[in-house]
């Protein structure tokens, strides 16, 4: 069979979203790939320039639809710097708790999608089932299951409801039991190892050269984790380990993510303990709750009086479930940011697709791309 290009996407089971992977194959061997993005480009950065800071939160939830609160957190950190607002301590812990729950939910979603890529159908449903418990918890205190709109500049919208900690601990126990089951189904299976070992290898120096971050980088043995290296929220006050693996292949990424799930549960438990002991306000005093919104009192035509904030820039970096995410917010006074720049980790991880796909087989593309953990929403933004 001669060489040919096939389009995997934009409607393809492998893509986990809306993008197109053009693959040049010779028989079963991949000769070249060319990712085509942009099918989900919604111009979030542009719309942000036309919205109040708190209204941008609704966009951030939709940036990555499986890790909404992490992106809220990222933007809020930058916006607080740009607006010179300090959140109270309890809000920091609640944010950290939320982000770790989000990491669990995101990794469970990844697990579900990934096992389906290698042909396992039932763990897909186990993963989705257990993710739903985490979403139930989210719903109990944010009110949303996928788009939370929970964080505000200067804190979070509301405190945790009574009885939340008890339920959350139950879910943590349940999840830890299930993680054992996941491991038995995947890494306990020889076929899994035959499929995933030595697949999609990106060595440590290549990762750094290509800018790859997150579990992909940690699976190559580089313990880079912004929660540890550049602690934000309250990460410097909890104990956890950075999960790494040495193999730099698909199995390594699986191992890293499973270990991160366990570490996230560990952080969640510590955060719950702290939150039990330290009640307090969750919003800073000096910031209006609906920033901008009540100050626009002339109907739809325009804003008569704009609130002026001191100029500033904000730069934040968090370890999103997929890797290093950066936000840069420029505030030129006024109620809207002048520019919001978001950097998605998947954007970079995906841009290196040629490096880790070429030379493998067509059947290897789904596991490799699955192990990258693509969220097209945050790539295209």
């Amino acid at each position, binding site marked *: 069979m001669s060489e040919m290009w096939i389009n995997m996407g934009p409607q393809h089971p492998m893509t986990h979203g809306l993008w197109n992977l053009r693959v040049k194959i010779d028989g079963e061997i991949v000769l070249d790939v060319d990712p085509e993005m942009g099918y989900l480009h919604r111009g979030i950065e542009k719309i942000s320039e036309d919205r109040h800071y*708190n209204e941008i939160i609704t966009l951030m939830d939709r940036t990555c639809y499986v890790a909404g609160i992490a992106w809220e957190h990222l933007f809020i950190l930058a916006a607080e710097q740009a607006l010179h607002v300090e959140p109270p301590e309890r809000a920091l812990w609640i944010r950290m708790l939320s982000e770790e729950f989000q990491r669990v939910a995101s990794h469970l979603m990844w697990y579900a999608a990934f096992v389906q890529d290698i042909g396992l159908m039932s763990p897909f449903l186990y993963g989705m089932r257990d993710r739903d418990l985490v979403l139930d918890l989210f719903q109990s205190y944010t009110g949303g299951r996928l788009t939370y*709109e929970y964080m505000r500049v200067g804190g979070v919208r509301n405190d945790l409801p009574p009885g939340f900690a008890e339920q959350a601990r139950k879910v943590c126990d349940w999840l830890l039991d299930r993680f054992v089951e996941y491991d038995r*189904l995947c890494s*306990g299976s020889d076929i899994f190892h*035959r499929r995933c070992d030595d697949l999609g290898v990106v060595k440590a120096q290549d990762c750094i050269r290509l800018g790859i971050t997150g579990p992909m980088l940690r699976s190559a043995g580089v313990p880079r984790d912004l929660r540890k290296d550049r602690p934000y929220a309250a990460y410097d006050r909890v104990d956890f380990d950075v999960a790494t693996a040495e193999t730099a292949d698909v199995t390594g990424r699986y191992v890293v993510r499973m270990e991160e799930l366990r570490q996230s549960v560990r952080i969640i438990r510590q955060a719950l303990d702290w939150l039990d002991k330290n009640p307090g306000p969750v919003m800073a005093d000096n910031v209006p709750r*609906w920033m901008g919104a009540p100050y626009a009192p002339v109907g739809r035509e325009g804003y008569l009086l704009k609130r002026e904030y001191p100029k500033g820039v904000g730069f934040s970096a968090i370890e999103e479930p997929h890797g290093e995410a950066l936000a840069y917010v420029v505030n030129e006074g006024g109620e809207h940011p002048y520019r919001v720049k978001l950097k998605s980790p998947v954007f970079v991880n995906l841009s290196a697709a040629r490096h880790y796909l070429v*030379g493998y087989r067509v059947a290897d593309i789904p596991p490799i791309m699955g192990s990258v953990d693509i969220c097209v929403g945050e790539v295209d933004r």
Partner: protein
Amino acid sequence: MAESEPTPSSNPVLWVAKPLVTAARQFGKSLFRPSTIVYPFERLEDPKFRGAVRVAPGKPIGVGQVWDNYRGVHALNIDTCISCNLCAFSCPDLCIDMVTVPGGDPRHPKKCPQIDYGKCSYCGFCSDACPEGCLTMTTRYELSVSKRADMIYSPERLREVFNAKLPMSPIRVERPKNEDAILLDAPLCIGCNACARDCPTKCITMVDLPKPVPKGGEKLPKRIWKEPVVNDSDCVRCGTCISVCPKECLFWGTHR
């Protein structure tokens, strides 16, 4: 490309035993009661599932009782609505329109929110902004309609939701205590009473000013010798007074 060989650690005898046993165990667990909640017949907001959403037999994980926080369709209590427009202003998607409802006085008709659920993103900013707590979000989430026009909920339909007495989010966001206040640029004021007339909470009163005695040669400005005074504790900061002021003499400023 490396030929993939089984890892040395994997046991060739048991190479598929572990997953098979795990799947069989799950089969045994879900034989009688799978964790599916059969949606149209069983509902999460059903009181039966409040206490314990059963994930597996013998292992209840109950998160059902906090379902009330869910942000679904709005409920509107028209009677307490003061037409302050804050919900419409706070909406990031511009999906709220203020439409006239019967019951107001003819010169100043009462206006209540009408929500287009085709645009709504259920962020809850409107119910957070509502100073009277009359616009709240309920647990209703079934919105499928066959016509796009049916996605628009008029105030009357929102009141029907309210009358259905659905569970509503118990979390109320408190207003910040030192929020900015309405301030008056006194020399510009002409005492026209527009602000006090249109204030939805009637927190503006017009107080008499002492009419100064004109000195020699000086001309007194032509005005009504009254001045608005805002009761900050009742003010909801809706800004209606600012928008109706003909002289733009009211403005936002730091709390006195």
